[in-house]
């Protein structure tokens, strides 16, 4: 299989992609959803935002996606912002087949289906849904719908993929499988990912950096590096390193929650 996406450089040599600088978001009524958030994302990064609910993770993603403007501070991109998004729900159009759903980003860019049919086929093959192009979402399981959602987010090969607790509603087994597949997928297409989760294990398994956040006001509490090499598989998940990293992340998270509570 020939996949011609960008290959990532080692951490430390990656060119910058996007930077949030002292970003505040205040909602009407004075709710400070985010306070002074600074985050640097480089090409090829897999960054997790880890924190209790209400600490502004979704708000941060929505700001990065350009769905709303920061109250203070700025978000700077190297070049143009090209993003793909995966929400907690698969968010598929029930009246459209799997391939039509994956076609959506192209359709909105006025590309003809035949011009991009190959990209769509490849995206579906990468998420393991080759045989389901003509199926309707209601015929698929929760995990499969999520895969379609992921295929749609990556089919245009965006610079950055934003994922907001994409696997939170799935069962443990499906979730593990999807975590593993997501890493393989990321290896293949070398995209940059910001992944929101409130699961310590998920964040350690997936990311090379974990941004631990605290609530009231939502803010970055600490940034942790996960120095384990990719590809990561079942050996990593059962290793002592992984356990130690989870312990650190978990302690940091508790610390963050204790401080804000």
């Amino acid at each position, binding site marked *: 299989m020939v996949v011609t996406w960008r290959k990532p450089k080692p951490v430390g040599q990656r060119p910058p992609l996007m930077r949030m600088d002292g970003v505040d978001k205040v909602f009407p009524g004075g709710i400070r959803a985010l306070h002074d958030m600074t985050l640097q994302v480089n090409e090829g990064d897999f960054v997790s935002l880890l924190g209790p609910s209400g600490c502004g993770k979704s708000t941060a993603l*929505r700001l990065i*996606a*350009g*769905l709303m403007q920061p109250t203070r501070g700025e978000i700077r991109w190297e070049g143009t912002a090209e*993003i793909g*998004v995966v*929400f907690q*729900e698969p*968010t598929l*159009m*029930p*009246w*459209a087949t799997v391939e039509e759903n994956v076609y*959506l*980003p192209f*359709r*909105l*860019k006025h590309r003809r289906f035949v011009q991009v049919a190959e990209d769509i086929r490849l995206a579906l093959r990468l998420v393991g849904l080759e*045989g*389901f192009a003509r*199926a*309707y*979402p*209601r*015929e698929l399981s929760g995990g499969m719908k999520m895969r379609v959602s992921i295929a749609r987010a990556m089919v245009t090969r965006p610079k950055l993929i934003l994922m907001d607790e994409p696997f939170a509603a799935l069962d443990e087994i499906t979730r593990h499988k999807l975590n593993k597949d997501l890493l393989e997928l990321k290896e293949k297409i070398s995209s940059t990912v910001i992944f929101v989760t409130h699961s310590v294990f998920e964040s350690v398994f997936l990311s090379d950096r974990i941004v631990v956040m605290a609530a009231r006001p939502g803010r970055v509490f600490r940034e942790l590096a996960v120095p384990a090499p990719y590809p990561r598989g079942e050996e990593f998940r059962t290793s002592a390193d992984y356990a130690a990293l989870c312990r650190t992340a978990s302690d940091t998270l508790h610390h963050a929650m204790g401080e804000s509570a």
Partner: protein
Amino acid sequence: MTVTDTTEPLIDAGEQARLTARRRERVLRWLLPMLTVIAALVLWDRIVVWNAIPHYILPGPGLVARTLVQDAPILFPALLVTLQITLMALAVAVIGGVGLAVLFSLSRWTEMCFYPFAVILQVTPVVAIAPLIFIYVENRLVGLLLCAWIVAFFPILSNTSLGLRSTDPNLRDLYTIYGASRWQRLRYLQLPTALPYFLGGLRIAGGLSLIGAVVAEYVAGTGGIGSGLAFRILEAGYRLNIPRMFAALALIALTGIVIFAALSLISHLALRKWHESAVRRTE
């Protein structure tokens, strides 16, 4: 997609019972209503015969059927006239209802300005407006259409409006992120979302446009373009031709049923691939 099991199918007693129940229900769903209708007709017939009710007070079902055949040269042209107005009114109601709904969804200001008028038209009984319409509108066909349209367009407008507003917020965000134009949002997101709502409104509007057409005919009387079923009922009433009144009534009821069935079929065909209301459970 499906795994076919080649071994002997094993079914426990509970599942077997459920299967039987489902099969029985499939048959009864058709059989029961037919039996009750037949029973009602027989009862009607017996009451007329046993009480020796004269046919100019209450004709039996047999006489009504015979009248339907005998008076066919009068009744069927009338049916065509009524049907024509009904279908034209329904078509205009679809165009007007969907058009207004789309306009309202494109511009909140338009909606705020004109929605009250739509409600006023809806809540005012058409029999009350119809005489005025026939005073102001010269053309009788246009007048009839207008009456039927006033009755029929509102369910389409309000249902379609609701549908256009019921898009998934996450999908809305997705469209924003991909820089969708207003037109693309309407075409690829709002209209498909609104389709089941619209079809629900359409089924109501089908019956209402028949009612509108009949009521308008009553008000308009005859003249101009041939006479519809309502006029035939009035006329038969003046002549105390009760069997013909019943025959015409039966035709109107039948027409209503056929319209409803046809619209339900259209709705089913349009939604059967994806909408929960139309997909058959794969059990």
